[in-house]
Each structure stands twice: as structure tokens, then as C-alpha cells.
């Protein structure tokens, strides 16, 4: 039992959980593989032509599983953004960071960090470019950078 200053008594549970998930990507691993080579691709339904981002093997429009990989593009325009200053517990060593939604010329939108920008420099309409990144742990990810 523990009793902090004015807090009522509680039992501080001795049972801890360390949650770390294995996230299946077998149907979309091409996106992550390609990202390692600095290329951005996504899925297109061969039956109805719907292009999706995030990529998905099964078409959300016509439910066909007949998809192919196409170039996603990297040039984007900022739609909206925020500057995350209170970060979640697993990001305490990564923050603060800017996150934006950018729209590509094909109309698809992407959410990602914006690296190398200040809040004052960002506003809707600002030109952005997607770049491939490797995390400190060696995992591929991607970020926007402002096109100056």
C-alpha cells in the first residue's frame, strides 16, 4: 500500500506489461521495400482504377484484390499541420515535431512529419516534398521537407 500526500490509498500493481506488436505487412511490404531505395509507390486497383494511400491490397471501392503498384509521387502542397509539443510516452525522446497532411497532384493525401521547418514557415499551400528516411532503429519511414 502506498499513500502519497493527500491522495487516497491505492495498490500500485506489481504486474507490468511491455506491449510491442508484430504488424503484418506481407500484402504491402513493397511500399516499405521501395522506401528503402528512396522510391514512393502505392496500390492501384486493376479493375476499377482506384489509387489508394495508404496502400491496400484489397480495393475499398470495388472490393477487388487485383491490385498493382504505381508511382505515388513526392511533390505535395500543405493542407493542414500541427506542432506536437506534448508527445505520447513512447515519443518523449523524439519531440517536439511538426506533422502535416500534404496533398499530391493526383489528389491523394499523405500524413507525415515535416522536418526542417518552423511553425511560422508552415501554412496551407506551402510546397512540400516527401523524402525517405531511416529511423535510428533502422526502420524505413518518410517525412515531408519544405521546398525552399
Amino acid at each position, binding site marked *: 500500500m502506498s499513500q502519497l500526500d493527500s491522495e487516497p490509498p491505492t495498490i500500485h500493481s506489481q504486474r507490468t506489461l511491455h506491449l510491442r506488436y508484430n*504488424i503484418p505487412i506481407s500484402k504491402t511490404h513493397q511500399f516499405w521495400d521501395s522506401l528503402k531505395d528512396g522510391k514512393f509507390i502505392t496500390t492501384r486497383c486493376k479493375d476499377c482504377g482506384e489509387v489508394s494511400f495508404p496502400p491496400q491490397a484489397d480495393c475499398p471501392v470495388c472490393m477487388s484484390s487485383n491490385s498493382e503498384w504505381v508511382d505515388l509521387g513526392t511533390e505535395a502542397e500543405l493542407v493542414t499541420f*500541427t506542432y506536437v*509539443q506534448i*508527445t505520447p510516452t513512447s515519443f518523449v525522446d523524439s519531440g517536439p515535431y511538426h*506533422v502535416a497532411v500534404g496533398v499530391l497532384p493526383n489528389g491523394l493525401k499523405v500524413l*507525415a512529419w515535416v522536418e526542417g521547418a518552423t511553425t511560422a514557415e508552415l501554412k496551407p499551400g506551402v510546397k512540400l516534398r516527401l523524402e525517405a528516411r531511416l529511423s535510428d532503429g533502422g526502420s524505413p519511414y518518410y517525412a515531408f521537407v519544405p521546398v525552399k
Partner: protein
Amino acid sequence: MDSVKGTLGLSEKMRGVAIVGIGHSRFGRRTDVSLAELGFESIREAVEDAGIDRKQVENVTLGSVGSWYEEGGPAVVVNEYSGFKHVGSMRVEAACASGSAAVRNAYLSVASGESDIAMAVGLEKMSEVDTLTAIELMGRGGSYLWEFENFGMTFASYYAMYAVAHMNRFGTTEEDLARVAVKAHHYGAMNPLAQFQKEITIEKALSSQVVSWPLKVYDASPVSDGSAAVVLASEETARKLTDTPIWIRGIGASSDTANMSRRDGYVGLGASVDASRKAYSAAKIGPEMVDVANCHDCFTIAEIMAYEDLGFCKKGEGVKLLKDGQTMIGGKIPVNVDGGLKAKGHPIGATGVSMIVEISKQLRGEAGKRQVPTKNGIGLTHNVGGTGHYCYVTVLSRSR
């Protein structure tokens, strides 16, 4: 008004359903009670308010998100503690709209004829983990791999993106957002069950710490513990139990994409527009007939968007409605006169039920110094799950 597909309300195929009992715990940091004890507070009050024997309750639905408390099966411990046995039961989850989803389930149980008396309980206990862990668990509520794993989105960050877009499109300012918080705290100060019962100033709100720019601490609802409960009864049973049944006239439920990147725009919530349209259609009313509303103000920008999405004003005119005092008591459509999520607190599974308890009090004329004149006898609750991932709009009325 034409009926819209996917609506629940007055239908010849279903029985009328009324709220006959309401209960509400004190919201806040409730380290003085366990999950089941906290649920009991509102359950007992609702059962006593209905004047029923607890054994008459045939179905109990719990709205709770969980993972910040130790129980894996919250409905079973709540049922056992409150003495519910051999009832139809489940826990439902629709993020911050779980409470309204529970009420919808209880409504269906009664309307379909499965039960004569059913309960919906909203319950959350978020302060058993540290605040940054609670922020993480909420931040994972979108599309995990594409928004959280690499980009650490938080609940505030999602709404901040809507705030930036709204500011850019309509000239909404940080001061405008702060006015929502000032209003919330004004009414929270009159609500003995609220987490924060102190007035604040615009200056205080504007000088608070930035959480996710442009949103600050005073733009955000807090981490909260609390419970709320309602007893629902069929028309025949309700008329025997009470002279002041509050009828569920319409429920509209809707949803939107998991990924922010797949949204059509960022100045309103499509799920709110759709759910309200369905609820108005089911209740055969328009927004101008609503006397009092509780809207989902998890962040200040959310309340301004709600005015617009629910049709209380045109898109882009939410700030004007607020500044003109039209959403205060005495205005055209008083909103969140219990303090809202901002000041009353936001125990996320409890919130939807809490809203319905508040509107029931208003329609019964039991809201004391926060009482709104209710000439049409119609109130509305608007409960959003996530960032417009889910939305439930419920229309309540004094008349059948």
C-alpha cells in the same frame, strides 16, 4: 422531413422508448474509488431515480474504452458489484462516443421488445496510468501504422489540424478558441459534479502551455474518471413509472475514415453532419427546434465545428454564434451549460451518457441555476468518437 436511411426513432415497427432514471457520479481524478465502485455511484442513483427494483433491469450495456484501468472485462466486474446477474450484457466501444453507443444498444433492446427495462452505463477511469500514457493510448485511436508508429499523433494533434484549417479558411483565432473554454468554465463553476468548478479568463487560457499548436492546455478536455447511467423503459412501462419520461425521439449514427489523410476536408466533421441529419430526420425536427444541446467539445475547435456541422449556424459562422452569446443560457441555442467536456471532464466512455443525463435534467426542469428555458421541449446530444471517426446524435423530447 423525409426519412433518411439508417435512422432510429419513432417508427411504426418499434416501440417508444423513454429515459425514466438518470445517475451521474462526480467527475475528476477519482483515485478514491475502483472502477466498479465508480460505476455503482451512477447505477444506484439511476435505479433509485427510476423508482424500480434493480431486478427489473433485463439488459445492461456498458460503454467503456479501457486499457488505462486494470480490468480486462469491465462490464462483468461492474455487473457483479452492482448485483446484476442473468442480464443481457456487453461492453461497447466507439472511442469517445462509447457512452452514446451504449445508450443506442439499450434503446434497441427496449424498442425491439427484447427488454421492458434496460440500462446504459458509461464508465471510464483514465487516471490509473500516467498522463503521457493516457495521451499515447488515445493517440493510437486512429490508423496505427500510418499515423502513430512513425509520427506520434495525439488526440490534440488531430484536432489541432482541424483548428489550423478552420483558422486558415474562416479567420478563426486562438482567442476565439479560448472563448469556448471561458464559456465551459463559466458553467462548470455552477456544476457540483464538474472536474473544474472555476471561472477562467481569455488571458489565462491564451497563456497556458501549448499542447499541439495552436491548441493549448485550456483548449483541451482533461484526463478524467467518472460514470453516468440511464434507465430506459418501453412506453407502457415508462408511463407507469414516471410523470416525466424523456423520450428518445431519434438517434443518428455515423462514421468516417480511420486515416486523417483520407478525409475530404478539415473544417468540419463529416460524421457529425451525417449523424445529425439522420437524427433530425428520425425525430422529424430541424436544428432550429432544439432548445438545449450538449456538443462534443473535447477541444475548443470541436465545439465551434459542432455548431456548424449540426446546423445551429452556417459553416464558418460558428465563432459569430459564440461571440454573440447565442450558445449561452438566454441565447438562441445554449450549448454545454453543464461545463462541457472541457470543464465537466471527459471520462471518455462516460461522456455520451453524461450528455444524455444533462439534457434529461434540462427537459425535466431539474437543472437548477443552469436551467435553460425549453419551450419546444427538445434537446440534443452530439457525441463524437475519435476525431470524427464515429458520431452519435441523439434527440430527446418531453413529448412522445
